[in-house]
């Protein structure tokens, strides 16, 4: 057996002998070059670190942008959501579900209800919520968590398809001025028809029932007294005589309806600041037409559409949508002329949404 020590020494001795001259040792230029090399390496390392910080920073910025909402116009109305969810939604196909077009109104109201379903792409883990707009707030609101509603097709007033796959669905019953907000219960095999959602007969699902309090007010003064929310209103006269003002606040969603003669104005805003992501849609019966935009004197650009009129004598319905900061704002004009609508839009100081952001 060979001796490692002698073999190693022999191998090292076979290496080319190195010689250095004293002049080379004292070579300041070479020393400086070496120092420079070290500095370059340090700089390269620092640059890499900066790149990492930049990328992380970009990620943070991207995360901050998450709540930046986008409003798009489709054939039925508006589709809105945060940029990421919208991108996912468009990549995976349309995940917006129209639940119902015409819903019988409670009490004296017989207006058309628009349903919004905040739908989230499959397995996104984001919150799904189905929001009912308009004044009929006794209609149920369903909020689904751990969202993974797949393959639901919705026609007319019923939801068909048996593939609601999430295990837990929060069912939020909305009742006027309800004080009981913590009521929860478990429901199995829920089926929803009309303004409820259908679920698979054979699939066992848990529905956690939670109530979101809904507050109704009949004047702006009352609203200001009771709620600390940002909800800028038109600063000009809407009509000669406002016959009714209905205000509803439900969580981050608030709506005001002014009635003046044959004209009706709805203002609706939702604050998505507290959400991780969302996608929703606002659907108008009969579809929409004449998409256009209008930029206010403040520099905010609204997207406007008209409802498709089934009869020539039907009043014009103009719908405006805009997203400001974390807010989504919808304004519906019924019976207003285009010019009147523009004036009203112009008079609303929506910069307040940004200030409050």
């Amino acid at each position, binding site marked *: 057996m060979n001796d490692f020590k002698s073999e190693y020494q022999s191998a090292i001795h076979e290496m080319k002998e*190195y010689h250095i001259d*004293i002049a080379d040792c004292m070579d300041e230029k070479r*020393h400086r070059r070496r120092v420079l090399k070290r500095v370059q390496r340090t700089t390269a390392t620092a640059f890499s670190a900066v790149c990492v910080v930049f990328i992380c920073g970009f990620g943070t910025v991207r995360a901050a942008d998450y709540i930046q909402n986008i409003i798009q116009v489709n054939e039925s109305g508006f589709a809105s959501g945060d940029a990421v969810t919208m991108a996912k939604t468009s990549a995976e196909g349309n995940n917006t579900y129209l639940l119902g077009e015409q819903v019988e109104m409670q009490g004296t109201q017989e207006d058309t209800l628009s349903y919004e379903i905040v739908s989230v792409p499959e397995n996104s883990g984001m919150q799904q919520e189905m929001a009912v707009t308009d004044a009929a707030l006794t209609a149920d609101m369903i909020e689904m968590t751990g969202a993974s509603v797949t393959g639901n097709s919705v026609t007319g007033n019923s939801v068909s398809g048996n593939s609601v796959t999430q295990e837990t669905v929060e069912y939020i019953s909305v009742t006027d001025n309800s004080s009981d907000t913590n009521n929860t219960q478990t429901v199995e095999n829920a089926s929803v028809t009309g303004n409820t959602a259908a679920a698979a007969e054979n699939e066992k699902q848990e529905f956690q029932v939670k109530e979101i309090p809904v507050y109704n007010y009949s004047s702006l003064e009352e609203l200001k007294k009771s709620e600390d929310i940002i909800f800028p209103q038109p600063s000009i006269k809407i009509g000669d005589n406002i016959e009714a003002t209905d205000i509803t606040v439900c969580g981050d969603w608030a709506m005001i309806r002014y009635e003046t003669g044959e004209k009706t104005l709805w203002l609706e805003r939702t604050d998505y600041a507290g959400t991780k992501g969302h996608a929703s849609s606002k659907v108008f019966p009969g579809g929409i037409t004449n998409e256009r935009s209008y930029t206010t004197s403040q520099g905010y650009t609204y997207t406007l559409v008209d409802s498709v009129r089934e009869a020539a004598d039907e009043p014009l319905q103009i719908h405006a949508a805009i997203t400001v900061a974390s807010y989504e704002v919808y304004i519906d004009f019924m019976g207003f002329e285009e010019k009147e609508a523009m004036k009203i839009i112009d008079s609303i100081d929506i910069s307040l949404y940004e200030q409050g952001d």
Partner: protein
Amino acid sequence: MEKEIKGDKVSVSEIADRDALQIKIDSYSDMLFKIAFLQIRNKQDAEDVVQETFYQFIKTNKEFESEEHEKAWLIRVTLNGCRKIWRSAWYRHTDAMPEVEVPQGMQGECESGMEKELLQRERSREIMEAVLKLPGKYREVIHLFYFQQMSIKEICLITERRESTVTSQLTRGREMLRKKLKEEYQYE
């Protein structure tokens, strides 16, 4: 009395000092270069480290108790210089291909025809490759122990490590070499 060397006027005493210094450099440069090369596996960097070591040696004009002390100081400065390079993020993130120094006279030596010599050279190459593939801390200890023939205590002083650490590093280094080398060697 003054002489002109490379455009600089230097005194005779300075020349004498320079000569003495050159002798010292000659006696250590090869050893230090080999230590540096084995540590950082890059000829250019190894040369830089050696030059930097002598630069420090001359600049500090340090007085040593003995030649052994001087040698130990130079090895320590060289190893520290290697670590400085090795520790830099750049070096760590650069996948350096070890520049295996082919033993002198090996290239194109087929004409020698001496099988024994060829086998010896092949063995030397294999050993060098195996040592160069060891992790730095083991490589350092192996080299100081087997080439510089330093005792574990001396290695401890130079590397500023505990005796137990050096012993275990030496043992592990040997185990690694045993696995890497085809041929069996006597390590003790």
